């Protein structure tokens, strides 16, 4: 069971991130008051991702569930943020750092998984099909997808955590 979740959850999250990213960019563009601000926030996300990637390489902890929950929480928060909130850009600034760092961390973890190379092939195919499918759907606002995806990733995190705990208990009882 755990093998299945280790196999499919990273694929789901990877595909989901790629599919959701255009919506996230749309949202980011909407909340950034200027193009310069948009570009800077994007750059910050990239630097934070590099930092997250490097951080994983340094530490390599076992579980990834908190990263799923963290990323999911960011997307859910994005979908809930009031656009007329005075401090919106300050909050976005913090979210960019967190999201970037977590994405980098996740990527670093994913490339070390056995299923990564197969996931990479599947992910390109699934993303292509999903994007084609989504292009026929009319949406009111990108935050609808961001919120939905955030919820799914949070659930993945919880699932992963529960499975890890179950596995640990089983191992202990076997000993």
């Amino acid at each position: 069971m755990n093998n299945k979740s280790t196999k499919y959850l990273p694929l789901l999250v990877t595909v989901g991130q790629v599919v959701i990213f255009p919506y996230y960019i749309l949202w980011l563009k909407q909340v950034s008051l200027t193009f310069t601000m948009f570009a800077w926030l994007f750059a910050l996300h990239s630097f934070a991702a590099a930092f997250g990637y490097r951080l994983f390489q340094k530490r390599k902890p076992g579980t990834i569930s908190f990263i799923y929950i963290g990323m999911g929480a960011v997307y859910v928060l994005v979908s809930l943020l009031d656009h007329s909130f005075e401090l919106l850009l300050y909050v976005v600034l913090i979210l960019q750092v967190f999201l970037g760092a977590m994405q980098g961390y996740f990527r670093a973890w994913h490339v070390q998984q056995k299923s990564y190379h197969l996931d990479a092939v599947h992910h390109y195919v699934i993303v292509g099909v999903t994007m084609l499918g989504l292009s026929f759907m009319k949406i009111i606002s990108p935050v609808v997808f961001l919120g939905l995806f955030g919820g799914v990733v949070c659930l993945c995190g919880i699932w992963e955590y529960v499975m890890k705990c179950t596995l640990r208990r089983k191992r202990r009882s076997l000993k």
Partner: protein
Amino acid sequence: MLKKTWFLAILVCILGTGIFFNIPIEKRKYGLSQTNLTTDYTGLLPEKIDRVVTADNSAALQQIVKQANVEGQHISIAGLQHSQGGHTYYKNGIVLDMKTFNEVLEVNVQEKTVRVESGATWEDVQEAIQEYGLALKVTQSQSIFTVGGSLSINAHGRDIRFGPMAGTVKAMTLLTPNGDIQTLTHEQNKEQLANVLGGYGLFGVILDVTLELTENDLYAIQTEALKTTEYETYFNHVLDDPTIAMHYARVSVAPGSFLQEMYAINYLETGKQDTETPLKGEQGMRLSKLALDLGRQGGPLEDLFWTTQKRYIHSLDGETITRNNVMRSESTFMEFKKPGKVEVLQEFFVPVDAYADYMKDLGKLLSAKDKNEDFKVHNITVRYVEKDDVTTLNYAREDMLGLVILIQHGLNKKDIENAQNIIQQWTDLTLAHAGTYYLPYYRYQTTEQFQKSYPNWKTFKQDKLAEDPNEVFVNLFYDNYLSEEAAYEQ
């Protein structure tokens, strides 16, 4: 290097900090427009105007006024449009945009005077007089307004020794409603000046003005935290202390100490003058805006904002500052742009000895916990204004304390009606304490409240019609409170 985790962390921190300090504080879009509706600083009272005329020279303005008399046109006068009650425009009227009429004409160091065109800002004046070691006697605490606009509302500020602004005017050049250009002085044209100063642009165009100046003294800042109940006694000591040149106070609107706590800031004479310190620019506006925005959320965040403010003010204790710099506080941090909401100012004046009772009664009227309410009070500062015998529409018929209040409310009909209702109750309370309210702000008050607050309104109106029988100079404020329909609506 890119393999180093700390290097990447520093990169993120540097860029994050850079972005933090570059998040734009967006200026609201308001002002004169012929293609769209014209508004003032609040964006309330949008109105279609006929045309905007940029003021180039007095002869051209004279021609426009004469022509308006012949053709039955209406003229309003606009500077930077911080007056919030439609004082700067009128439906289908001509608006004289005075911002380009902004020369500082003469600084007389011997007589300590400055002659300046009315479209100049106080900042322009400060820049011209600073090098001579001179400073203004009276101006607002911010220097962003035009001279003509401030005189038309008879502004006051932190100075507690020189009375309202009207008293510092030595002479004025006025383009009268019939198109003549006159030089007015208090000695020769007392009644005319009484109407022009604090006249909201209804008695002609102020072309230039000669203002009295004083030295650019160096002050020591003295701060004190106190209870609202102690302030009346405290302030009387301040007035009796000749070493205190300027003073203002702030009242808590945080839920935990709502109207109970205050802090006072005094500017004490050091006996020194300062010719070295330059005029200060906007300092720390991003952090100030961030703090204010947090305070705007209400509840515990507003408590936190109040505590932070108190700490910051306390940290200023003992510092020195020049008179000119006291009179040019930061203003950008107050920018507010939230869809569906507006921030407006109101100011109520009460006699000094009525302050304690007034604040007690005010506590019963206002809600301390306004976090989830539409009508929110974000800030109250207290200023002193000496009795004014100079102007007709005078708000200080005796020595008064003015409460300058920053209010936020919604823009839909129900929210505006709710705000109007609260402010009208507030005005009644102020009147019951022998107080008045200030006229440069949005017109929440009824005509009856206006007439009670300004009993000289009839004289003002009669003089207006005598000097301007064709009602050439009008604005939305005039229409609302002083036109024939308004005056007798009750």
